[in-house]
Every structure is written in structure tokens, then in C-alpha cells.
């Protein structure tokens, strides 16, 4: 982390929750860098070819901030909800960077299929494409129902459980299940075209 004074994020969080977009921006920037670094380090240490465990990252970031006393433990739900949003950005950014690389930036060209060293693993190319398309569909959906988008972020990008989502959004688990089904149907429709 940078050497800036470690401000208490709880206040920012609350304001961001209440719709203060300036607070949201500040919060976003504060956490984005941190999470990005974590994600990079995790990618380095993961076994080759394994997935970026966003769930762990989300939890990890929560802990990190609690440890630094910048978020209170009671705000866990809100924080993780928020971190899931950030995670979405990070993941999408990662994928876009990689696509840029493959188109010849920075890294030496490596043949498409040279066994374990291939950058482009045929099975994940499809996955990455899915992620990008979901991301775009969510942007669209966000114009209609931002709350639903938050739920998808938490579930898909953040890997949070129904209980955790219910806690964060302060709704019942039953509602979470119903809304999740709703979101999936809408996104399935969007991705089918």
C-alpha cells in the first residue's frame, strides 16, 4: 500500500452506500490498488493455469482492511459487497490486458499450443469471453435495475454465499435466491443473442 495516511473507510463506505458518488469514487480508488496488488501476487503464487480465486481475494481484502483498522468488522457485509464490485473491474481489466498482450504488446510471441506453456488455453478462452460478455450485459442491466447487478457482482465475481449476500443487502435469503434466478434468466437471454 502507499504511504498515504490510512483513513477510516467506514465512513466512506456508509456514504457510498447511501449514494454519495464522490465517496464511492474515493473508496473505489483506495481499494482498487490494494486489491490489484493482491490479485497479482496471488496469480504469481497460484499453480500454473489455475483460476484467480476471487472469493478468496474478496475475503482477503476484507481482512486486510480490518487489520489496518480501516473497516470495522460489523461492516463486513457492506465491504464485501463493495469489494465484489471492485473485483469485477479488476477481473475485466486483467482479461483486457491479456488480450492486448496476445495482440503483440510487451511479451514475446509464444506459439498457441506449446503444451503447458501456452498463454492461451483453449478451454479458458471461452471462459474469458463469457466474463466480458457478462460484464457488458451487466452494464445494460444496470440501467434498469442496479440492485440486481450488485447481486450478480457479489455472486459471480465475489463468490459470496447466499447468506453473505443477504447480510450485505439486508434482505432475506429467500429473496436472494429468487432475485438470483431472475438475474440469471435475464442474463441468459442477453448472452444468447
Amino acid at each position, binding site marked *: 500500500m502507499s504511504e498515504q495516511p490510512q483513513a477510516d473507510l467506514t465512513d466512506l463506505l456508509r456514504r457510498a452506500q447511501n449514494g454519495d458518488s464522490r465517496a464511492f469514487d474515493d473508496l473505489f480508488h483506495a481499494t482498487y490498488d490494494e486489491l490489484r496488488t493482491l490479485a*497479482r501476487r496471488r496469480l504469481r503464487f497460484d499453480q500454473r493455469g489455475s483460476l484467480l480465486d476471487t472469493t478468496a481475494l474478496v475475503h482477503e481484502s476484507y481482512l486486510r482492511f480490518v487489520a489496518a483498522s480501516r473497516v470495522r468488522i460489523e461492516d463486513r457485509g457492506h465491504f464485501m459487497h463493495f469489494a465484489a464490485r471492485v473485483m469485477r473491474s479488476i477481473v475485466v481489466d486483467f482479461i483486457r490486458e491479456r488480450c492486448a498482450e496476445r495482440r503483440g504488446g510487451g511479451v514475446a510471441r509464444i506459439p498457441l499450443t506449446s503444451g503447458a506453456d501456452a498463454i492461451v488455453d483453449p478451454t479458458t478462452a471461452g471462459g474469458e469471453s463469457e466474463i466480458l460478455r457478462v460484464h457488458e450485459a451487466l452494464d445494460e442491466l444496470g440501467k434498469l435495475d442496479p440492485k440486481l447487478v450488485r447481486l450478480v457482482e457479489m455472486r459471480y465475481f465475489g463468490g459470496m454465499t447466499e447468506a453473505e449476500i443477504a447480510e450485505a443487502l439486508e434482505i432475506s435469503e429467500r429473496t436472494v435466491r429468487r432475485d438470483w434466478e431472475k438475474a440469471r434468466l435475464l442474463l441468459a437471454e442477453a448472452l444468447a443473442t
Partner: protein
Amino acid sequence: MEHQPESDESWAQLNRMLDAVLSLPPEQRSAWLDTLPPEHAALGPRLRSLLARSAQVETDDFLGTLPPISVSSEAATALGPSTGRAGDTIGPYRLDRELGRGGMGSVWLAERVDGLIDRPVALKLPHAIANFLGLAERMARERTILAALNHPHIARLYDAGLTDDGQPYLALEYVEGQPFDVYGKSLDLHGRLRLFLQVANAVAYAHGKLIIHRDLKPANILVTPDGYVRLLDFGIAKLLDNDAARDGALTEFGARALTPEYASPEQIRGEPLTVSSDVYSLGVLLYELLTGRLPYPRKSRPELEHAILNTEPQRPSDVAGRALRGDLDTIAIKALKKQPEERYATANALADDVLRYLEGRPVLARPDSTRYRLMKFVGRHKIGVASAAAVLIAILAGAGVSIWQARVAIAEKEHAQAVERFVVSIFQEADPYRQAGRPLTAAELLRHAERDISARFADRSALRISLLGLVGTGLMNLDELPAAESSVQQAVSDAVLLYGQEHTETLRARVLLAEVHAAQRDNDSLRKELPTLETAAREVVAQEPELLVRVLKAKTDLAIEEARFEDGAAPVREAFELALRTLGPKHPTTVGASTLLAEAVMFSGAQPELIMKESQRGLDFALAAYGGREDGPRVIQMRDVHIRALEATGRYDDAIVEGDKIIASAGEAFGPTSMPVASAMMNTARMRMRVGDVATAVAQSEQALEILGAHIDKESREYVYARTSHALALMAARRFAEALPELDAMTLMAEKIYGSDGWDAVTMHYQRALALANLGRADEARSALAIPLDPSEEQYDAAWVNRMQGSVAVLIGDYDTAVTRLLAAKELLTGPTAALREPQILSFLGLAQLERGETAAALTTLTRAQQASDQLGFRMHPVYADILTGLGRAHVELRAPAAAIAPLERADAFWREFDANNVAGGATAYWLARAYAMNGRKADADAAQARARALLLHSPRASDARLLAARQ
């Protein structure tokens, strides 16, 4: 999208409709759509088309998880700054090359920059996740505990810390080997089980130090090329667990990385862990060893977790399709029980059962079952008349018998006075001048009294019964058991005739008889008597609680004697509580029950921390009852139990300290040349031998023997035992010529007492064999080993048998047999003392390998022997000197003379100080001379050679003769 973007309003409507229809169960949705009211009908087609995907979305688990993003290492490097490259410095270590990566972090081969550890280490760099919530303090705290794990089968944790920029690191012993399951594939069933035993023993050792592994799995158990197990990451899971409250949680906060396949149900549930959790993981490992499969093969993590919590595993014999004996099934299933209380209580218990299977017999790894009778000491103590009465009363009172109290139902003053008169008269008649001019012993006094009673009180009367009971008690406490039995038996018959079968007086006499039987170890009689006695005692418990207390104590005695150790604690616990309530905490019977309870727990094979806790409780209790006086007789009795508890849990150093203290206390209480002192000296000497303090052990056992000889019958068990212990101490000090005649004599005596077959005879002959072999008398050694063995005997110790056979084989030149036996001995080591017994085995093994010319193998063996010895932290002693000499010799033979000098000089210095004229130092001096010569240090070489010759000339061993004849 194929439809137009909605307006806000139409979206709101769609949203409401979706909410409504999705709240319905799937089978009702179609009907609901059919009955849409007209104002919403327009949305019908859209809704249907959305819902049509519902089934598909479920089965595909659409958006269920984030798809993998594959990143090669090059790309990852390009993406961000690297925190680990060869040559980087992490704390005091320099990275050499990466060894691997896992869910928790990466591992590097590294070296210490300042050379403080001269071996390469495995440096574990955990994820950032570890960098939270007080890791620094936790590491400091845990590091001392984890670094205290010194075991040949556990990889050491050397160091742990945080770099300035917050990167945590753990420096572990670097182990080259294959994971447990991979290595096991090349072995047969027995081989795999022996491997498993190594693991279980290491785990048991750590449990003894109160450290739980928490993450036992094949990847954490490496096997070196020569079949040696090393456990990794002991306790590290705890170190890295960043939530103290969720001790071992698997499902949150990044610990999803931990594999659930080997996790126990309580780990899955996130509950606090105990040693049972490790036992469970051992069960999974065992299951896999037996069947090649995991107990719950499931594809997805939630299914696996559910199975661990709820599904019973298939029996291994069903899975593996081979004829696994029923025992192995039972063992595996028991270790895998969902409830911790139903599993093996300790890793040791599990290891014992596996060992049982391997040997085809029941095995009990129990502490030494010889038990302690305080009064025996005083029994043969000669007394003068003047103090006879005091001694007698002390004897009886010390045993918890309150002579003058209402034991007698007819509590008449007259009766009591009559008893008193009689006792006094015994002593008046014990006029020394009438007894062949020598003082009487208390025992003789009582025997005399017994005969007297029959003469003086011909009628069966309450008085006679009382007196017989009294005398019987006294005789019992003096270990005059046949006489005691006859006295008390008479009392019982009298009581039956006088009072009838059901009377409390009769019950009292019968309880006393049961106690005599317990003292005699007459288990058959006890088994018959106790049930009825217990019932009867319970009926009168309100009036005579002490009777039930005594019956329950006898019940515990029986359980222990019959090796039903699990049944031992419950009766005496009840007895103790009853005695506490009714007799009070200071009553000798209560204290006796308290001590017996501690003893029973020790024998029950409970976990070490429980044994020690109970022993401490017993100690505190006894001390409180005696006003803090450490030399109270009952306190000394409890202190003796305490020492044996220390011995049973492998804490020899502490046992020695306590032993020395008891010597002092007993000296004050009974006199410096008294029997209790001698006994304590002997026990402490035995313990000293085990930790390698041979010199003191010899001196102490010599002292003990001297004192004993003045007191007890030279044909008694105690004396034989003491003299044998002394002979063993002499053996340990390499004074074989002195030891052998002692052993010969004691073997004859032991055969007289214990019979010419059985375990005691075996041990004696084997020790003789070892002495004979050391004295170059090979044929006699061989015939001494020819005594038949019975592995089904309770005390049979396979590891010991093999070690002795192997050691003798080395000494008489039969190296092939030696290697086989010694390897077998190594595999069979079990229990808390395994690590202690290993160096001896390895030292002989190394010697055999050297003699066979397998120098490189010898070097490996002896290096490990040295490491194992170092880890035990004992002072220099002959076995260690042997190891050093072997190492030096190996280096000389491998033409690496520089490396040879240091160990040889150490060994040589040891012999010159310990026993300069002992031929055992001859070989050491010889090899030292060779090493000096190879290093060009001629003067030193000549001096050493001269010493060597002087010693070797007197050595009877063939190998030493060869050295003498060899040319430089």
C-alpha cells in the same frame, strides 16, 4: 438484445411479474402464466421465453462460478513486480531455486546468508493472506513451541519471521523425498504399514508436546530414498490461521486452499481442534494406504464436505477386493469415526493396534507394571524391642487401618482395652535374649503373634476375630502374604460361624481377605469375590462407607493386574469421591484412593497431558493431607507414582530430578541407608541410563545395591532386580567383564523366581548374550540367544528383541543377519520412547554397514544417528561415542580425513575422561591415529596409535584384533 430496451415503467412491471412467478415452485409457473389477467397479457410471451431457459440455467449452473483465467508464468511475471526470484534476500535467507507452489504460497530452496544454519532450508513464503492480525506475535509464540519438536521423523522448523516489507517466511528443514502415497506404491502391505507406523509415532510424539498438526496429508509426509518418513508443516496451519477464534476453519478467509479430503468433520464445521482431528486424518491416510482410494471419493467440494460429515465409509476390505484381515477394517473404521470420542484416543493407540496387526498378536504399549508397596521396605527392617510397638502401630496406621476406631461393631471399651493389652504383650514377650540372641523383625513379631492368638484365645470370639484381622493387616502390609492370608482366612471362618454370612463383621473380614488376595495378585480369587462383596458393601454404605471404598480400590487393582486398563479408573474414582465425602480428605484411605486413581489413569494409556494432570492432582492432594510434608509416607508413595507417570510419558529428565528429590526425602524420613532410599536410587539410576547418563547411573546403582544388601534377602525379587539393574549399568558403561558374572548369577536367580521360560528369562539371557558377544565369546553368545520366544506374552517387545539380536550379530561378525534385524527393530519402534531408543539401533546398524564395506550407507545411517542423538539433547555417552567413531571411520575409509578428525577427537576425549582404560576406547584411538596420519599429523598419529595398541591388546573382540593386525 432482440427486444427493445424497456422504458422504466415497463421494466417495473416486468420485474413485478418475474418476482411473482419466480416465487412459485416451477411446476406451478406454467399454469400461472396461462391465467394472466388481460392488462399483463402483453408481457406473456416475454415471460415465457425467459422462463423457458430456467431448466437449462439450472443444469448448466449458469454463472455459478467465475470461469478460469489461465495465466502462464511469463505472463504473470509481465503483469506485475515479482516477489520471488533466485538471488533475492528474504530476511536472513537467500533464495536459490523455487521448489514448488501451492494454494498457500510458494516454497524455495534457500540458504542462510550468515551461515548460522549450514544446511539448505526450505523457505516457505505464504500468501499475503498470512500477513494479518498479529502474525508476528503468533509466530514468536508458536516458533518456540514448534522448534521444540525434535524427532527423527519430523522436519524441523528452524525459523519464522517477517521481512521489513511484510513478507512472512518460514524456514524449514529441507527434505528430499517422495510423498507418502507415491512411495507407498512400491511397497507391499506390510511395508506400507511400517511406513504408516513411522508417521503415527511422529504424530504421537508431537501430541505429547501438545502440538496438533491440523493438515496431515500425503503431500506433507515425505519419504526419503532410504525409507525414512519426514513430516512437514507441523502446526504450521495454525501459525498461518489468521483468525484465532476459528481454530482450523476450512471454509472462510482464504483457507479454501486447504484440502478437505483429509479434514475431520470438526474441521469442516470449523470447531476447535484436538488431537482426535489428527487421528482422523491418520485414519484417512491409512484407508488410502490399504485401498488406494480415499474414503469418500466425491467430485465437488460441497459433496465431499457433506460426505465427510454424514456418510459412513465403505469397509476397506470391500473396496480393495483383497482379503484384508478383519482387524485392519476395524482399525481404519475406528479412526474414521465422525465423533471424536469414538476414535482412538491417541495416535499411539492407533499405532499400537497397527503394530498388533503386523505382529499377529495383541500388543499393549504400557508402562512398567511393577507396582509399589511402601511397606515392603520396612518389612524386613530389623527393629529393637523398644520401638517395636511404635513401629507396629505405625505400620498398621500407615496402611490406613485405624486400629482403635469403630471398625469393631461391638464398640465396647472393654473390647478395645483387651486388644491393646494383647498387642503390648506381644512385645513384652519379644525379649531379644529369648530369641537366639538377635533382634526380631516386625514380621517375625507378627507371625509370632498370630500363633499366639490361636493358643491364647481358643474360643471363637469377637476379640479373636479382631486380633486376627489386626495381625493379618499388619502382615499384609509387611508383605508377609501367606501368613497374612492364613490369619485373615481364619478371621473370616470365625466370623461366618459367629455372626453368619450376612453380618457386617463378616463382610469386614471378607473385604480384608480380598485386599490380601489383591496384594498376592491372586486374580482368580478376586474375580470370584469382588462382585458379591461390592453388592454387600453398597448395601451398608451409609453405615460403613469405608468398606465400599476398599472394595472399589480392590476392583481397580484387579483391572490393572488383568491389564484391563480401561476399566481401571472408574471404580477408584467412585471410591475416591465416596471417601472424600465420608472419610474426609485427610483420611489415609482417602489419600490411598487418590494415589491409586492417579496410578490408574497412568495405566489407562490416557493422553500424556491427562496423565500428568491427574498425577499432579494426586500429588497436591497427598501433600495437603499431610500438611505439605513431602516426606510423609503416603506422599512419598504418590511421588513415586508421579515419577512413573513422568517415565511413562517419556519425560525422563524430569523423572530424574524428582527421583533425586525423593532420595533426599526418603533419606530424611527413613535414614540415609534405608530401603526407600535404595529403591529410589535404583529407579533414578535406571532412568539415567535411558538418557545416557551412564557414569552416574553406574555409581548410583552401586550405592543402591550396597544399601539393599544390608537390608533384604539376597534371594528376594527386589534384590535380583537391583543387581540386574546394576549389571545393566555396567554394560552401558562397557564394563562387560564385570557385568557378565553378575548377569550369570542373576539369570539363575531369575529363573528360580520367575521360571526358566517367560519374558524375564528371555531378557536375562539376551543381556548375557550381548555381554558374551562383547567379550568375544561368539558361540556362547549364540546359544544364549537360542532361548525360545513367545510373542504372545504381554511384555513382549519386538523392537527390543530385534535390536538385541541385531547387536549381537554385529559383534560376532554375522553382518547380514545384523542388518536385517536392526532394520526390523527400527521399524517396530513405537510409543513415546521411540526417539530415545533409535540412536542405539542406528549405531549398530552403521557399524554393520561399515564392516560390510557399505561405507556410504554407513555414513548416512550414522549421520542420522548423530542427528537423532543431538535432537534428544543428552550428554555425551558411550553410544554417542560409538556413533562418532563410526562417522570418523567412514570418513577415513572414504578418504575424507579432514572430516574425520572432529568426531574422532570428540569420541576420544570422551573415553579418556569417562574410562581411560576401557578397551572400548581402543578402536576410537585407532581410527583417530589413521585420520591424523592421513592428514599428515605424524606426531599426533603416533601418540594415538600407541594408546590404541595398549588398549586393543587387551580387547577380546575379533574386530579389535583385526585392527591391531592391520597395517597403517
